[in-house]
């Protein structure tokens, strides 16, 4: 395995650890740390009430909860590529798995797919400048009604 493959794999692994969204995950960890800090700071006041017990939660769970909270919107929204791009990527992956393509050919194909799909996508967005994933159904019906 050459340096290309190794760095690709490492980058993918790190992205996996960061749940594919580095900014949200880091902010979640920072949020967990800050909440942890305030829980420790206001420990006397929190011990007065008997509704919730913050000491029962293991401390390392605070960053985890922060990561979940900051990444949850993306899970519900989903992240769908254009259907043509999905199909082409699927075809290239299947051909690569079936060993009908060498890795070098697959890399070049991926680059071609990326270039053409990027051109299509941006041309479409240029013609229709609205944000593609904006939920705008209810507002439109309200305006028409």
């Amino acid at each position: 395995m050459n340096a290309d493959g190794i760095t690709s794999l490492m980058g993918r692994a790190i992205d996996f650890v960061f749940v594919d969204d580095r900014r949200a995950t880091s902010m979640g960890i920072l949020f967990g740390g800050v909440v942890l800090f305030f829980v420790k700071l206001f420990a006397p006041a929190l011990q007065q009430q008997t509704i919730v017990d913050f000491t029962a939660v293991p401390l390392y769970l605070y960053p985890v909860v922060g990561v979940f909270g900051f990444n949850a919107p993306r899970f519900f929204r989903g992240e769908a590529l254009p259907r043509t791009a999905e199909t082409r990527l699927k075809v290239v992956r299947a051909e690569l798995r079936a060993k009908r393509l060498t890795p070098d050919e697959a890399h070049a194909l991926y680059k071609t797919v990326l270039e053409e799909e990027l051109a299509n996508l941006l041309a479409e967005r240029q013609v229709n400048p609205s944000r593609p994933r904006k939920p705008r159904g209810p507002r439109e019906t309200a305006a028409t009604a």
Partner: protein
Amino acid sequence: MSTERPARRSFYIWFGFSSLVVVAVYLVIRFLSPWTHQTGLVLTIVVSSITAASVAPTMRRLLERLLRFVTHGLTVALEAFRDRRRARRKIEDNHVAREMMDGWGRTQSLGAETDEGSLLSDSEAALLRHGRQRHARERLAVGVMTREFEKSLTTSSVALFLALLIVGGYAAWSRERGMMIAAVITGGFFLLAVGRQAILAWRTRRGYFGSSEHEVRELLAFAMRHPTPDDFFDDNGHLLPAFDLRPEQVSATAAIGQPSPGAI
């Protein structure tokens, strides 16, 4: 000359590497030595800063310049104390002083149209040339994403570092087990973020970016949710080429004005 590594990217690599060195040296000293905690800490700082300074080319060059500056200043001051005229001649003769005083001022004020060969030293000319190459690389579709990516990675590094400070500081003070685990997790994430930055910079520089499905998906998703799609077009309304142009394609492309035909 052209193999000289750009300062900013090598900084990421240097930063990640030296933080690893710091951790390793600290662990070795802490667990394998009979010294006390404070001595170990001081030794760690000294050893790791020396290592970092010798590893990083930018730091090494800076240190050398600083040393030369200090020694030269001392010499000049001593000479001036003895003989003013001799000292002035020494300043004029000194190559280092001339390079530093003239070259630095010129590099900062110089436009791109100046004849570098006659005015600048080799390293400064290389720096200028590198800056121009980097500008050209940023006029790529990948470059738009890479810039955003680096920005988000910087944000995440800063956020993680702040979290590490809060959690680690509290852990060092309270010595709670859970707090220490949280601090270690945060530190691990910080190192990973720095490493991701280094990997991305390396892959983009070598032209490897975009050759795997993960990166294709990432760039396409980025282009879909990027708020200003105009960033992907140049001033004339043409779509930016996705990748670096091959040298033989540059002239043809410049004449016709089309994006590159593709990597195959």
